[in-house]
């Protein structure tokens, strides 16, 4: 057994060697073999992140902002280039294989999702870097992040920080670290890597949530809630991992699935654990729960509205988009690579979750009065739609989910970017009643937001429709027609509240003291423009991207 294990073990297989050496001499110390080229996107991002930290440490304060922005954009772009290069080399399709001694899988889904995440991150950086929206503080442009995270809100210390023109430019490295984690998450090919990646992208997000410049109380509250619940969920994930390890004697996806299929070489130890399906099923359930928490599926969604509302809007946008992509990637890999053998166990359960998610998300959103919470609940509903695609358990299912994630993430980014523009004295005016008559005062912004809403609602000729059609089609072909029906009904409910916002913006008279639409710098404008462009392109001519997703639809085992 030990031989076989050594072969399939990941980075820590080395240590297993240590243990083995007790039996046979130290000459059999295998050096871990890492394919740096194939991990380059991740490495680049982490590298740049570290550089960013150093920049924070050593650059004079006035240069940091520029430096950080440039660094992040360049780094992310480079990483994206690396992804493209890998895809060109065919790592997405023919040469797809498992790198880093079984820790990371480099295959179609990985590259597609990494690409998506990186693009999303680039756009997110633009919104992070926006400095025109808030009124100037002491003659300086300020972004939407706290001057000094540690300073107590309203304290002299904070005032001093603002006066001194402090800005938390460390958000950029934090973002990069999160992105790094997200890049690994869908690529993770053993449960440990999965867990570590999860933490790596979660922790920076916790901090980012706490860093809002306005409404800091809410921001901190969001952070606390996110953190505690996140930690709670990762505890479940970890326990699930433990149980699966106990079942299979390994955390490597390949080994676990082999054990499940009974194709793995038996050992006495395995023999008396594999008999015990309770370990397997409970483990499976708890790991799934950990991931469902990240995608915000009912009933693990409750953190979403609060966190989305409290966090600084650029962060919310980034989270809403990127986290979903990463988490669904991981979920897909887990379900398609590790647990295909258990399809008959997890499918009914996920059916239930998907239905609950679609319906409850849509229904609760109907009575929301805050734009950000509204979008939060809509993201819950969308998680449900994506789950329907996941449940197709087919290649088309995978590719449809990939496509949906790409389409959805850009719409979300765009929508939240627009939210940052509508402001009044107290910062962003997120209460819906304040949006009345926006269409009159600034038709363009309202129109753009309307486009995003229509995309969310899945109106034809928008990316939302293409995505929704793709997943429902896959689900229907996968024999999940009931899911499609429920999905259709809940999208009808969902349509109601998107429409309500449009009515509010266009058909109701503007408030006298209504919020003003800040004129953004090219940064945010670009971000929104990209959002609109992607929405329309994926809506009108999705063929190319569908092909891409289709090609990328195969997991390496």
């Amino acid at each position, binding site marked *: 057994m030990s031989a076989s294990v050594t072969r399939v073990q990941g980075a820590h297989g080395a240590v297993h060697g240590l243990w083995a050496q007790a039996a046979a001499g130290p000459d059999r110390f295998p050096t871990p073999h890492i394919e740096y080229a194939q991990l380059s996107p991740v490495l680049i991002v982490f590298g740049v992140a570290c550089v960013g930290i150093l920049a924070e440490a050593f650059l004079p304060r006035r240069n940091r902002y520029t430096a950080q922005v440039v660094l992040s954009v360049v780094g992310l772009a480079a990483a994206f280039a690396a992804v493209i290069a890998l895809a060109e080399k065919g790592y997405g399709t023919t040469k797809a294989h498992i790198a880093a001694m079984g820790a990371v899988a480099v295959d179609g889904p990985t590259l597609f999702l990494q690409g998506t995440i990186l693009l999303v991150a680039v756009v997110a950086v633009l919104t992070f870097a926006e400095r025109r929206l808030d009124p100037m503080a002491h003659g300086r442009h300020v972004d939407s992040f706290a001057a000094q995270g540690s300073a107590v809100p309203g304290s002299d210390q904070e005032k001093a920080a603002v006066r001194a023109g402090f800005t938390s430019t460390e958000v950029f490295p934090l973002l990069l670290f999160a992105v790094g984690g997200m890049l690994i998450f869908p690529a993770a090919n053993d449960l440990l890597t999965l867990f570590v990646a999860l933490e790596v992208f979660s922790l920076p997000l916790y901090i980012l949530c706490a860093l809002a410049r306005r409404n800091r109380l809410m921001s901190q509250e969001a952070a606390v809630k996110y953190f505690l619940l996140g930690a709670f969920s990762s505890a479940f994930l970890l326990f699930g991992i433990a149980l699966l390890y106990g079942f299979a004697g390994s955390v490597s996806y390949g080994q676990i699935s082999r054990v499940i299929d009974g194709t793995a070489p038996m050992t006495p130890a395995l023999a008396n654990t594999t008999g015990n399906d309770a370990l397997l099923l409970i483990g499976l359930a708890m790991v799934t729960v950990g991931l469902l928490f990240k995608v915000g599926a009912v009933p693990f969604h409750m953190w979403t509205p609060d966190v989305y509302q409290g966090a600084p809007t650029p962060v919310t946008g980034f989270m809403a988009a990127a986290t979903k992509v990463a988490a669904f990637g991981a979920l897909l890999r887990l379900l398609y690579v590790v647990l295909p053998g258990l399809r008959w166990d997890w499918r009914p359960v996920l059916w239930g979750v998907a239905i609950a998610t679609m319906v409850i998300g849509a229904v609760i959103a109907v009575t929301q009065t805050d734009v950000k919470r509204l979008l939060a609940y809509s993201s819950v509903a969308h998680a449900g739609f994506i789950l329907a695609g996941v449940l197709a358990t087919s290649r088309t299912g995978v590719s449809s989910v990939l496509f949906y994630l790409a389409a959805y993430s850009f719409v979300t980014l765009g929508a939240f970017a627009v939210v940052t523009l509508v402001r009044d004295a107290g910062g962003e005016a997120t209460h819906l009643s304040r949006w009345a008559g926006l269409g009159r005062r600034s038709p363009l912004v309202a129109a753009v937001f309307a486009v995003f809403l229509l995309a969310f609602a899945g109106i*034809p000729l928008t990316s939302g429709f293409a995505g929704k059609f793709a997943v429902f089609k896959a689900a229907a072909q996968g024999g999940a027609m009931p899911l499609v029906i429920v999905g259709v009904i809940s999208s009808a409910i969902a349509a109601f509240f998107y*429409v309500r916002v449009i*009515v509010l913006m266009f058909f109701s008279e503007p408030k006298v003291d209504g919020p003003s639409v800040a004129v953004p710098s090219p940064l945010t404008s670009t971000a929104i423009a990209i959002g609109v462009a992607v929405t329309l392109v994926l809506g009108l001519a999705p063929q190319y991207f569908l092909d891409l997703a289709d090609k990328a639809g195969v997991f390496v085992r």
Partner: protein
Amino acid sequence: MSFPLLTTTAVVPAAGAIITAAVPAARRTTAKYTALLFSLATLVLAAVAMIRFDPSGPRYQLTETHTWVKNFGLHYDLGVDGIAVTLITLTALLIPFVMLAGWHDPDPLETADNRRWRPTQGFFALILLVEAMVVIAFEATDVFLFYIFFEAMLIPMYFLIGGFGDRAHAAGEDEGARQRSYAAVKFLLYNLVGGLIMLAAVIGLYAATAKQLGTGTFSLQEILNARAAGRLHLATSTERWLFLGFFFAFAVKAPLWPLHTWLPNAMGESTAPVAVLITAVVDKVGTFAMLRYCLQLFPEASKWATPTILVLSVISIIYGALLAVGQRDIKRLIAFASVSHFGFIILGIFAMTSQGQSGATLYMVNHGISTAALMLVAGFLITRRGSRLIADFGGVQKVAPVLAGTFLIGGLATLSLPGLAPFVSEFLVLVGTFSRYPAFGIVATLGIVLAALYVLVLYQRTMTGPVKAGIEGMSDLKVRELVVVAPLIALLLFLGVYPKPVTDIVNPSVRHTLSDVHKTDPTPALEAKK
């Protein structure tokens, strides 16, 4: 690769929409004329299509085929049969009149202070956009392509209803605004729900074709050929579910009792031209789709559902007429009249006789023109008086005889008086129904009495009697308004005495449709005996 006439017919108005929208705020009039110009250009193109269409030729003509989204089995397949080309021409014909009639509708929305706010441009651009989408929907020979535009056209319509609604509201401006947005939302949600249910059916259809043909497709031709070749056969239950999914969407759009309640709100709250756009243009897509998709794709299920649908449509006829009699609001009255008329159309379609279906098609055209005439004149009337309540009118014919006259002609067309177009179609529908389902035919015939009732009551209360307060100074029709109404009336008269040009184009297509459902006209009892 011949000249893509059909694409052009749709692209021209779309382009017009963009250009109109781009006209700077100050140049309102320019925007209006630009839009009008494009709509006329579209009319020319449609006319060309009508002329180039050869009734004795193949079923679908002027076809264009491209793949749009392979993975979705979505093709950009265009082609027209007699029915489609007729309805396209109707649409293209009505739009200029709608624009002229609504020439000043957006003016009250204009605000001097805000340069970015351009309601006029928006209004006319939206109308053109609707036209483009409707035209595509008529031209599509790919189920999914049709669905996309069937669904997408809701959005511009929605803005037209909610954004440019009727300001003449009894209950004050605020209440008016509330009513408007309620109507707009109601319109959108009803149709969206219908559309989404249809989406489920569309996906189901794809799954079915994908399972049986290997690759899923939405191309009408491919599906029909496959079925003809026996490669595609839907299980009875599947076919019925899919049929219901499609029919529900169309029945909402058409609208069929009891899914009609959005129409009175929508038509009541929007200005007359938009109301015409709804009932005369957009709703036709629903009835057209029944004829094109329900019958062709699901012949067996259609036959299975026929009795129920006939009952519903007869209910629509009587119910709509009765409610029209009971209305206090001119536009709502016309709306319910339309409900009744759509009942006739659907009755004709599902009577499954050539008279019924030709009649139904003709009915779509005639109803479009007659409702346009009646509704637009009503609109002129309402804008003059600033109220939609019948009670606020009286003795108009004394002060504005021409207006009253045109209104009467519109009304007479609505009650389908012989000599005016709607009579022909209504009688065809009735006789077509009667020849297969006498009972339904007879009940439906009662509708013509009720039609006389609501039209004449409306005319009597508004136009005759002593001149009411607020009517005295009322001006008669202006030139622009005459330009709108006169051609419509002329058309009503022409098609009333000589509908042959239309029937000649429609009949062959109807023959095809009937052969799809394997139905032939019942032979007269006497011949049957011999």
